[in-house]
């Protein structure tokens, strides 16, 4: 499970590559938490361009990271979200707490 990172203006872009399910969750979670610990960013942006599948286990991971960044007063956003993932995301009520932007540029300007 490949997770890439970029820090832009103290905003951590998290690029997940592959399906997010219970099997891949654990690794994604620990990679992200390590990076947040190390870089201490102001906010986080999930780049979902290379995620073709996500189920409610993935929602758990996203919410967990959202809570983590909240404790230090930060916020979370999501970009490049494909239709299947958008539907799971909406059903699970994430729309209300983690805004979705078209692309990275818009997210970086808005948060």
């Amino acid at each position, binding site marked *: 499970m490949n997770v890439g990172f970029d820090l832009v203006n103290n905003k951590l872009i998290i690029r997940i590559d592959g399906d997010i399910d219970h099997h891949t969750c654990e690794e994604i979670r620990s990679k992200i938490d390590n990076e947040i610990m190390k870089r201490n960013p102001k906010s986080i942006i999930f780049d979902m361009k290379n995620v073709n*599948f996500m189920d409610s286990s993935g929602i758990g991971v996203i*919410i967990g990271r959202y809570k983590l960044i909240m404790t230090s007063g930060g916020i979370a956003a999501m970009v490049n979200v494909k239709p299947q993932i958008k539907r799971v995301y909406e059903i699970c009520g994430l729309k209300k707490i983690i805004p979705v932007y078209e692309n990275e540029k818009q997210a970086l300007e808005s948060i």
Partner: protein
Amino acid sequence: MRIDNEMKLEFMSKSQNESFARSVVAAFIAQLDPTIDELADVKTAVSEAVTNAIIHGYECQNGSIIIISRILDKTVEIEIKDCGKGIEDIELARQPLYTSKPELERSGMGFTVMETFMDEVEVESQSGVGTTVRMKKTFKSI
């Protein structure tokens, strides 16, 4: 009712089989020519039920999971069965946000996802015996 096609899959409760299970069901329903959205709906629902069997049913111990799927005309029936610990209060379990394992960062949305993506979801469970989730979806004809 006439069964057009039927398959039964049995596999070990290992987390790498979550993606295997959804690929199998996707390959099976390919003969119904589902839309991309319909295919994604079924794969997601299957992923939820299989993940639950692994995490909650068998609590990540060894066990066997069975998927039976039938195609009748434009409808697919999918049954996902474990012989794990079972659900004590099914009504509570099906509530959105309810999870018995918050320590694992579970969202408690598995059943809600299944119910949203499939036309029908039926849960049968008995403590100490196991759980069977039966789902149905009818595809729109093209």
